[in-house]
Structure formats: structure tokens, C-alpha cells
């Protein structure tokens, strides 16, 4: 107390229970008036011991838990984990499973970005886009519910494929969604893109320089908004991304506005990918295997492998060290939000308190993924 009066600064403690930290993040801000001098992010309130948990059970017992690492994009987490095991055991999934995985992951990317979009606008104070985003997201969750049986914690992928087959009715639903989605997104853009208040709140605010982005090993849309064109789907194509035509949107300025634009464009590209997968699935709906039915007793890999996936928030890695037993001896996750959350001091310094949440929101940080 005495110290802060001497230094003429105030300590503002944002979180861990704060409406716009989106989870239990604590930001210790040092303020001069309303200007932020220093921010110290304090994490760990949502630590569940995900990595240690893996060592206690068998490979497939860990699988349902993996979805909880990032509850907004469960498919990506389970893919990263399974990718590592499949690399260890040299399993090649059936083609149809690959297509189903791609289509679900891209829909998941859209739903995750939609939630981000709604919450971000909510952070800026606009209330209605939140509801519009949730209406669209609800449609995707409905599709997932029919496909996997759960809205958020899917546990749908399995070793060597996926659990349930996709049927024609569901494909029709996805097609209807993908057909309408661009129109809905256009309405969003009409409401937001040229809104003068939105532009004044985001343009040239929270600029992330290329060098800083690289030094902090930021990935995903945050990196691409700073002008570095890196996307795992193009650089090291996994699944069927080689056969699919899509662009990687990027912008050079690195401010909050370009992060917003990049994410919105990414949703459009995801929609494009979904449409291409749909075409293939429609023509090959019959008589194809969706998984390999691997004997669980034989899952005893040996060696080390890294599963990797371009999640909505960036590069997600899962490192598995296997010792020939039915339990992994070490699982290590590299989650993208962990690297983004550290940026906050770098890019929100010297802005006002009002900008803190708009900058932090634009990074698309999600706390369970940071703490694991």
C-alpha cells in the first residue's frame, strides 16, 4: 500500500473471477491513472494435472479426458493425441475416417471461432453479436450431438478411425449449414466490419510485431495476423489437406482488427473445406470402413512421437514417450494459448484499462488449455 502511493501507481487486480478473462486468469495490472504500466498474468487456477493423468491409465482410458484440454475444440485435442499414437504404431486410418475427421475438425474450428467472435464483441460492449454467433454455433453443436452424442466433449475419434458412421441425413444437415453460413457471416460483417466504434476500438490497438510474435513462439491466427504465413495444414499437410483447395488468410498489421479479420476469413475457408469434404463423402457414402477395430490389448507402442494439429488457436502438439507397456510413460502437451497469454504484457502495455480486455480478447486465449 505505502509502496504504491510512493510510486504513484495503483494495482488493479483483474480476475480470477472477472467476466471477460474467459476463465480463471488473474491479471495483476499496475496502473498510472487509467494507463497500464505493467501486466503480470498469473495462471494455474485451472490446472487439472492432464499430463500426469495420462500416466495413470491405459492409452484409450486417457482418450475421453483429452477433450477437456480445450473444451471449445475437443476434436483437435483428441486428434493430436491419436496422431501421436498412430505414428508410433504405424496405423493408417481408412480414407473415409480421414474425411470425417477433417469435416468435423473444420466445423469445430468454425464453432470455436464463432464463440470467440461473440465473446470478443461482448468484451467490447456490443451485446447482440454474441447471440447471433451463438445461434450459428448452436447449429454446429446440434450436428455434433447427432454424430458423436455430445455437444462439447465428443470422445468421437478412436485409434484408427472414428466411432460412429456419418449418414446421409446428417450430411444433408451439414450441407444446409455450410450453404447458409457464408450468408450469415456476411450479416456479421455488415454489422461489425465498418462499424466506426469497432474500428476505433481495434485498429492499431494491441499491435503484435513480427519479431515479438516469433520470440514468444505464438502460432495460429495471432501469428498470421502479424504477417507470417504459417499454417500446419499447408506446411505439413496431415489428414487430407493435400487434396483440398483452400487459402490461408493473413494480414500484415498485427493489430486487434487484423486478428478479427483473419479469424472471420478463416471461418470462410473452413466452410470451403467442409463443402469439398461433403462432395467426396456424398459420392462415397456406402460400404467403406470408418475404423480399423484395433484390439485394445495390443496397444503397446514403443518409442517417441509427436502428434500435431493446427487448432483454432494455433499449433497444438502432443508428445508421447512410450515404453512398450499399455500406459504412456510421459505425455507432454504444447498448447497454443499458453504462448498467447504471455503476450499480454508485451502488447497491452501503455494502453488504457478499456483496451486491456479488447486486446486480451483478440488473442483468443482459453484458460483450460493454458493450465491443462
Amino acid at each position, binding site marked *: 500500500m505505502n509502496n504504491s502511493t510512493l510510486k504513484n501507481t*495503483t494495482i488493479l487486480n483483474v480476475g480470477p473471477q472477472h467476466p471477460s478473462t474467459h476463465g480463471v486468469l488473474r491479471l495483476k495490472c499496475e*496502473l498510472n491513472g487509467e494507463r497500464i504500466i505493467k501486466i503480470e498474468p498469473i495462471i494455474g487456477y485451472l490446472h487439472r494435472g492432464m499430463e500426469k493423468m495420462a500416466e495413470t491409465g491405459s492409452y484409450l482410458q486417457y482418450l475421453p479426458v483429452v477433450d477437456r484440454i480445450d473444451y471449445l475444440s475437443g476434436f483437435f485435442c483428441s486428434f493430436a493425441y491419436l496422431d501421436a499414437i498412430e505414428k508410433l504404431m504405424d496405423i493408417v486410418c481408412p480414407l473415409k475416417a480421414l474425411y470425417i475427421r477433417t469435416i468435423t475438425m473444420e466445423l469445430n474450428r468454425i464453432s470455436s471461432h464463432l464463440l470467440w467472435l461473440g465473446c470478443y464483441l461482448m468484451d*467490447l460492449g456490443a451485446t447482440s453479436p*454474441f*447471440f447471433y454467433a451463438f445461434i450459428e454455433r448452436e447449429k454446429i453443436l446440434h450436428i455434433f450431438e447427432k454424430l458423436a452424442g455430445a455437444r462439447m466433449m465428443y470422445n468421437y475419434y478412436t485409434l484408427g478411425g472414428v466411432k460412429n458412421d456419418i449418414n446421409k441425413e446428417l450430411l444433408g444437415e451439414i450441407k444446409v449449414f455450410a450453404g447458409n453460413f457464408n450468408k450469415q457471416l456476411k450479416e456479421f460483417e455488415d454489422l461489425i466490419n465498418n462499424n466506426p466504434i469497432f474500428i476505433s*476500438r481495434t485498429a492499431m490497438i494491441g499491435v503484435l510485431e513480427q519479431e515479438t510474435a516469433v520470440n514468444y513462439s505464438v502460432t495460429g491466427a495471432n501469428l498470421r495476423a502479424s504477417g507470417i504465413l504459417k499454417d500446419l495444414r499447408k506446411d505439413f499437410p496431415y489428414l487430407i489437406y493435400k487434396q483440398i483447395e483452400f487459402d490461408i488468410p493473413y494480414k500484415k498489421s498485427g493489430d486487434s482488427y487484423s486478428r478479427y479479420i483473419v479469424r472471420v476469413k478463416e471461418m470462410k475457408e473452413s466452410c470451403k473445406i467442409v463443402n469439398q469434404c461433403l462432395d467426396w463423402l456424398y459420392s462415397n457414402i456406402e460400404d467403406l470402413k470408418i475404423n480399423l477395430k484395433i484390439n485394445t490389448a495390443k496397444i503397446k507402442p514403443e518409442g517417441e512421437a509427436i502428434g500435431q494439429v493446427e487448432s483454432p488457436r494455433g499449433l497444438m502438439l502432443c508428445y508421447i514417450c512410450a515404453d512398450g507397456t499399455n500406459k504412456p510413460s510421459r505425455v507432454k502437451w504444447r498448447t497454443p494459448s499458453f504462448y498467447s497469454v504471455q503476450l499480454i504484457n508485451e502488447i497491452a502495455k501503455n494502453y488504457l*484499462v*478499456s483496451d486491456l*480486455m479488447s486486446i486480451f480478447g483478440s488473442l483468443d486465449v482459453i484458460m483450460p488449455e493454458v493450465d491443462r
Partner: protein
Amino acid sequence: MSLFYLLYIECLSFWKMPEWLIFIMWYIFNFILIVILMLLTVLFLVLFERKYLAFYTRRIGPDRAGYKGCFQTVADAIKLLFKENIIPKNADKFLFFLSPLIVFVPVLTVWALLPFSSGFYTFHSCCSILLFMAFLAIPAIGILFAGYSSGGNNFALIGGIRSCMQLIASEIPSFLVLASIVILSGSMDLSVIVKNQSGSILNWYIFPSFLGFTIFFICSLIIMNRLPFDFPEAESELVAGYNCEYSGMKFAMFFLAEYAMTFILSALVVVLFLGGYNAPFDFYITDCFNLSVILREIFINFEQFFWLIFKTGIIIMLIMLIRAAYPRLRTDKTLDLCWYIFIPLSIFNLFIAIIIKYMRGIL
């Protein structure tokens, strides 16, 4: 004296009461009437806003309490009444208790100054415009006190300081606009200003000073803490800002004051620029019927009241639409808007008003 006062004296003369008692009782009646009117307006406004926003965002909105949720705000109010009254440990208890009153009472007082119809106004003053704005400046002090006394809660403190900051910034351009209206009408009396706008829609002051209307409308948004400018309680930055630590009835008072302020400032915009209680055409609908003099007088008052509420409703719907569509502006951007754009523009508007007044004098 207004028609209703004469009617009132006529009714009371039966009992032969002393004159001072009649005089005092008139104000007590008025006070009760205004409190009831205000509570009803706020109850309706809160429900209306929720339903309206629900419609805008494709939801249903409250639909449980009463028919289609019509008692939702009543239920909320009852809930707030029974809530625990929490006072923070380090709070300045006197200020903490006082500040909801400082916010609430001036807003309630202001309702007495508004001419709801040609016969229905409580307090008549020759400079009611000045009184109006003076009373509306007081709530900001209450908000500052609320932020300051909340036991060292920095969120509340920042909210309180922001409220004062925006009050000073918005008060100057709005006063300059008011000056232009005073020049146009030649009076500082709200009822005279309304009377000068009677006749037809072309006499409304929105036409000579559309610029003034725009500035005053946006400034009133700032004064009433509505969404593009609601930084004293920006929920995504400051959680709830100045009323962070308040609960129960004290919170309800802030809430009540906020909505009462929304209504009264929209009504002020209507009175100043949109002809107040005047009908938009050059006759009243009541005149279409053949009524006796006294009945006509009464029905015209009701019609005028309807027109005022109707126009105010349109302004309030506009305010709610803005709330639904726009994100929050930043504090410093708002200050820039007020100091660098609105003040020069409102001075320009003042000059236009002077020129129009001068030309009218010549022609």
C-alpha cells in the same frame, strides 16, 4: 395556474380547509403522483428493454412471471428488496449509504419540472431549463462518492472517476445547445419553449437546429450512461464499475435512477426539439369531437400527455437500438469527441440560432 389546480381547489372548497394546507397538500399529491408515474415508467421500461433486445437478438426474453413475463420487473424488484444489504469492511459507511440517495433524489426531482401537458406540471419556474440541467449534474457526484466509498475497490473508484470525467465533457456542449434553444424561443421556461413550438411540425426546433439535436442527443446518452458511453459501469472492463459493491435496495436505487434518467432525458430531448406535448399537426384530435369546454380541456391534456409519451417512446427505442448495435467507445475517444468536435460544433450551432432569430426579427 393550471387547470388541474383549479379543479383541485374546486373539489377541496367543500371542506373549508385553511389555504396553506390546500397549498401544501397540492404538492404532496403531485409528489405521490410523480413517484407512482416514475415507478410505473421504470417498471415498464426495464421490461420493454429486455423484450426489445430479445426481439433484436432473436430470443424470447423474460416469459415466466405473469402473462408473457409482464411481472418480471416486479418480481426482480421484490427479489432486490429482500436481498442482504452488504457493506464492505473498509467502506466509508456514511458516504456509502448517502450516494444512492444523491443519485436517486435529483433524478426524481427533475420529473417535477417537466411539462407533461399544458395543464400537468408540478413545479413552474421561469428558468426550468437551468434547474433541469443543474439537477441532472448531481447524480455524477453520487456516482463518484459511490466509487470512492466502496472500501478501496479500484474498479468502483475508476468507475466513479470516469463518471465525473464524462459529466464535465458532456455538460459543456449540451449547455451550449441549450443556449441556442433559449435564443430561439426567447425563454428559459420549458413550458414556454413547448408553447413556442405549437402549431405544426414545422415549428419544432429540430429544423432550425438539427445539429443541436444530434449533439444534445449524444450528450444525453453520455449523461444517462447508456451503452456506447456506459464506461462508469462497463461490465466487461470494470465488472460493474461504481455499483460493484452495492446490493439489495441500494443497488435498486441506482438502477431505478438510471432508467428514470433515461426516460426524463429522452423527454427533455422531445420537449426541446420535437415539440414536447404538441401534436405533430396543427390541430388536436380532441377538437374533432364536439365537447363542452371543460371536457375538451381535460381530454386535450390527456392527448398532449399521449403525444409526449409517444415521442419519448420513439427516442427511447432509438436509444435501445443503439445499445443493441454498437460496441462501447473508449473513454479518451469520448472525451476527444466532446471537447474537440462537439464544443466547436455547438458554438457553430449557437451562431446559426442567433442568425435565424435575427432574420425572423427582420422579416
